[in-house]
Each structure stands twice: as structure tokens, then as C-alpha cells.
């Protein structure tokens, strides 16, 4: 009976603390109207590469907020970290679309006042109030950057240049393939199947009924003999490609950039079937201890300069199109390389991460939910 009490107490406390419910209340109710004095510290949960000294040091110097970053390798880890210690351990999290809704509905994050972030008005329209971080008119964070999960290959050992995701499912590269150790990878398999086996009728790789789900899992099971290692940390994949253990695989652009800087002959691309991707939001913890520093950080990372730096470093696309000319100044041609200012059509072509739920959105409620994805992934890995 210990847990019952805990849940009730926590929910009651959170409900009291959060005077803004998740639907239909005018903004300004409980939201700050100015940014106060910095508290001197900021605890972040971030993807690897999101808190590099080149933009963190100037921030600390300007605001006096010392940044402590804890890295997470998957959205699930982020959700867990945000909930640890009763929810007040960390102030902010750079959640992707598949974690953000879970955090919102789990009441782990609080709404933010977008009027305090001047650069928010300049964001591309699709990322001002996207459904993955805006619920019922309330903004639960500020969009940050977005990008695709690409196909990484060793240019010397993989010829001709691959054009399809089938490359990571074919026995041609047996024992030299690597894919992320993340249940959301099932969506990548589903995306491939949506084009290679149209009879399955997969429209959205995150909304899979039992039949479609089984097909995706079967494809991943067939892929097992080809895999050298499921990479769990970004540095895993960097090691794999650097040391000759893998020559083709699925990646984030961060690894591509790091490998190229380490003079490994690799390139990445988006194959013809398209790609899954992620759109990240900096979200504010419901029980953040340092909200003023948090707002200062939101302001800072939305400025064109920082957006450009981060985009080039990680290999992603800024939400603020004013960063594009700066990107070209820092690294010629980088704006086009990372699709800065890309068309809305390109944006729509990326299947951004979102949490699989049973409600398929087409009236039916027979889609597989995330617990089933996670169980299936653990079991298929062996």
C-alpha cells in the first residue's frame, strides 16, 4: 500500500503546483511575465552534443548560470531522468517528439511563456506550435532543432553509393551493419516496409496494427545476423566505424560529423524511402528549481548565432531560419547541407519521432502501444 499513498500524494501535489491544466485555459494563468534574476545554476538533460562549451561558456559568462548537463541516449532515458528524485532534479530537457507528449501528459513539464523568447516569432511556422509540444493552446517548451536519422556508410568499402534502406537489410554487408539500440527503430523498419511492401498498408510508421507490427519485427529479426552491434551511445557508432567493425548503418548526423573530423571516409544520406527524424523541444520541468536561468537558456539557444553553431556541430536544422546566413558564414554551404530554410515539403517528408499509442487516429484503437514496442525490441535483440 506504500505505492498507493505515494501516487496520490504526488498527484495531489503536482495538481496543486501546476495551476494550468493541459487543455483550454487562457495563457497568462500562472506563467511568468518577466525573467527574473538568474539562480546561478541550470541542470539539463540533453542529447549528446547539445551542450557544447562553444555556446555554453558564453552563456555562463553572460548570465552567471552554471550549466550541468546529463546526457541521455534515448527519449525513454530522458523521461526517466526527468521523473527521478520526484521530478525536481533537472530544470530542462531537450526532448524529442516521442518523449514530449509523454512528459506533458505525465505532468512532468510546465507551460512556458513564448512571449519571453523574442526569437520565437522568427521560427518556421511548422515549429512555432507543433502538436508534439503544444497542447490545448499551451506551449510546453520552445522548439529547438530538427533533423533526420540518416544512412551512414564507409565510402571506400561500400560501392556503389547506396540509395535505399534495403542496404542495411541485405546480406551483402553481413556482420558489418549497425543500427540504434532503441525500440523506436521499429518505425524505421516500418518506414522501409511502407515502400517495399505496400500491400501491408503502412501509412504512419508509428501507428502499426498487429499485422504491420509483426512484419516490421520479422524484418528486424531477419536483420540480426547482419548486425555487428546495436549502438546505444553515440560514441559506440563512432568507434564501430573508426575501427573497421561496421561499414554501414543508421545514424544521427552528429556521428557523421565526428567521424569526418577524425578523417574516417564516411558519408551519410537520406535514402529514397525517406527517413524518420526528430524535432527537439527544450522543455521546462514542472518542478524546476532554477526557472529564471531556464528562460535565459531558452532565449540564448533560440538566437540565430547559437542556432547556427549547434546546427553545424550536430548536423541538424535550426528552427530559426535567421540562422541560415550565419551557418554559411561559419561553414560554407552548410545551410544547404543541413536543409536550413528548407521547404515545407521537405519538413513534411521526415517522419518525426512520436510515441506509439493504441489509438490509431483513424478511429480504430488497435495499434501497438509503446510498452509492446519496448518488449518486442528487448526480445528481438536477444
Amino acid at each position, binding site marked *: 500500500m*506504500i*505505492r498507493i499513498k*505515494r501516487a496520490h500524494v504526488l498527484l495531489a501535489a503536482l495538481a496543486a503546483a501546476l495551476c494550468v491544466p493541459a487543455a483550454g485555459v487562457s495563457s497568462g494563468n500562472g506563467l511568468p511575465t518577466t525573467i527574473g534574476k538568474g539562480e546561478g545554476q541550470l*541542470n539539463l538533460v540533453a542529447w*549528446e*552534443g547539445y551542450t557544447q562549451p562553444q555556446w555554453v561558456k558564453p552563456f555562463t559568462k553572460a548570465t552567471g548560470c552554471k550549466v*550541468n*548537463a*546529463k*546526457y541521455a*541516449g534515448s527519449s525513454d532515458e530522458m523521461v526517466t531522468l526527468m521523473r*527521478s*528524485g*520526484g521530478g*525536481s*532534479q*533537472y530544470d530542462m530537457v531537450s526532448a524529442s517528439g516521442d518523449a514530449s507528449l509523454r512528459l506533458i501528459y505525465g505532468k512532468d513539464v510546465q507551460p512556458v511563456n513564448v512571449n519571453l523568447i523574442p526569437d520565437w516569432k522568427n521560427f518556421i511556422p511548422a515549429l512555432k506550435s507543433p502538436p508534439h509540444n503544444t497542447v490545448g493552446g499551451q506551449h510546453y517548451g520552445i522548439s529547438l532543432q530538427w533533423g533526420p536519422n540518416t544512412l551512414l556508410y564507409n565510402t571506400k568499402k561500400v560501392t556503389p553509393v547506396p540509395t535505399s534502406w534495403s542496404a542495411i537489410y541485405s546480406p551483402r554487408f553481413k556482420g558489418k551493419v549497425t543500427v540504434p539500440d532503441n525500440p523506436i527503430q521499429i518505425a524505421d523498419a516500418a518506414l522501409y516496409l511502407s515502400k517495399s511492401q505496400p500491400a501491408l498498408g503502412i501509412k504512419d510508421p508509428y501507428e502499426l496494427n498487429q499485422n504491420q507490427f509483426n512484419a516490421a519485427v520479422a524484418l528486424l529479426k531477419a536483420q540480426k545476423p547482419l548486425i555487428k552491434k546495436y549502438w546505444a*551511445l*553515440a*560514441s*559506440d557508432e*563512432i*568507434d564501430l566505424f*573508426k*575501427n573497421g567493425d561496421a561499414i554501414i548503418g543508421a545514424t544521427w548526423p552528429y556521428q557523421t560529423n*565526428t*567521424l569526418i573530423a*577524425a578523417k*574516417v571516409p564516411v558519408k551519410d544520406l537520406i535514402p529514397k524511402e525517406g527517413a524518420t527524424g526528430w524535432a527537439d523541444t527544450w522543455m521546462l520541468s514542472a518542478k524546476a528549481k532554477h526557472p529564471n536561468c531556464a528562460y535565459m537558456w531558452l532565449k540564448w539557444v533560440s538566437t540565430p548565432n547559437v542556432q547556427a553553431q549547434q546546427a553545424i556541430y550536430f548536423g541538424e536544422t535550426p528552427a530559426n531560419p535567421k540562422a541560415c546566413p550565419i551557418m554559411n558564414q561559419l561553414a560554407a554551404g552548410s545551410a544547404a547541407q543541413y536543409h536550413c530554410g528548407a521547404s515545407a515539403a521537405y519538413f513534411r517528408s521526415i517522419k518525426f519521432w512520436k510515441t506509439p499509442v493504441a489509438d490509431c487516429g483513424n478511429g480504430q484503437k488497435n495499434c501497438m502501444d509503446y510498452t509492446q514496442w519496448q518488449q518486442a525490441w528487448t526480445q528481438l535483440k536477444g
Partner: protein
Amino acid sequence: MEQRSTRWALGSWTVLVILFLWLPLGLIMVYAFNNSNVQSWPIPGFTTHWFRVAWHASEVRTAIWLSVRAALLATGFALVLGSAAAFAIARFRFFGRETVSFLLVLPIALPGIITGMALNSFFVFNHISLSLTTIVIGHSTFCVVLVYNNALARLRRSSPSLLEASADLGADGWQTFRFVIWPIISTALVAGGLLAFALSFDEVVVTFFTAGAQNTLPLLILGYIRLGQQLPIVNAIASVMILLTVIPVALAQRLMRDTGVVARGTAK
């Protein structure tokens, strides 16, 4: 005396095992000078740049200091609780004696992740925010048994009649402790304390669940390993740690050896 050939064979085996233990450590020290930030063989070039970076990085210093404090506190608790428990078990027969022994071993025998999860849930339930205190609580659970075992083993080997003799000679409890008990168990406590400190300083799994936003040295290293961008810093830190701890460990071994007199009264 063993045969010459036996001694020679055992000696060679010893050399091979020691080499096996130290080859990776040698690689760590060599790669602290790696001038590429990605680890690969053979080493592309050498630089001392990373030692300077590690020295100047404030997060490294903060993490080391946090680890030292946590280890000192946990070892302190372990020394007090462990010796108290060892004394009780060694000297008294009571119901549940074996159970107590078993329960004390549990934190080290059970996977760290179970201890970590359990403590994390406990702290969340009691609204205790994660901090140095929670780290120390987590570490103490498995440090106690290390001191307890050493102290217990030493007490078992010494004779209870020493205490009676001391009382017969008119000493009160405090004097008995100071002049009789303490010399017997002091080196066992040093040995146990040293092992407890090492374990606490290097612990990562339980700390991950009890540390919150701050980083101890192992958590910081885990972060660097995740990034994969500055691995030589980690190698540099490890190399310095190895070199710094040679002296204390050698001293500790000397200490333990010298007072074998009481323990090994029957051995020679």
C-alpha cells in the same frame, strides 16, 4: 618447500597474470597522450594537451571532490557500523545471528542495479531530494560489509579471554577498547576501509540512481564515454589516479603485514 620446477611454473604463471592485469592499464596510460579524440589502434600521435585540459576543467575537479567526499563519508559510516556489527556477531550468541550476517552481505551480493532502483524509489517516496547524502547512503550499504568481514575475521582469530584478562586487571570498557581491542582490529579496519574507499570511489551503478544532477567522477567519465569526443581526458584522469594511489596502497599492505603477529600466532 616446494620443488624447484613447481616454483618456477608458479612464478611464470604469476608473471603472465600480472601482465594480463597490466597490459590494458598500460594502454590506458599510453592513450592519455593520444592526439586524436577518437580511440583507435595504432595511436596516431602524441600530445600532453589532454592533461592540461583535464587539469583546467572545473567539472573534473568538482567531480573528483564529490567522489572523495562521498567515499570518505561512506567509509566512515562503514567503519563505525561495520566494526559494531562485527563485534556483536563475534562475541555474542543470539537468535538471528546468521541472518544478520546474511543480510549484511546482501548489498554486495545483489546486483547494484537492484540496490540503486530500490533506494531511488525509497528516496522518491519520502521526498528526499538526491544529493551527497543519498549518494553516501547508497555507498554505505555495500561498504559496511567490507569492513564487517575484515573486522569479523580478525576478531574471530583473536581470543576472547583477552577481554576478560583486561577486565581482571582493572580496566574499564574504554581502556579495554583503547589498549586491547583497538590494536587487534586496527589493521583489519584499515584493510576494510581501504577496500571500501576504493569501491565507493569507483562505483557507478548505484550512484547513477542516487546522485541526481551532480556528477561523481565515475558518472563524469560515463558522460565523456557517451560523447566519445574527449576520451583521452578520461585516460589522463585514470593514469593520474593509478600513479597517485601506489603509495597509499603499498603503505596499507605494509601495515597489514606487520601486525600479522596476533593473527598468525598459530601459522608459523
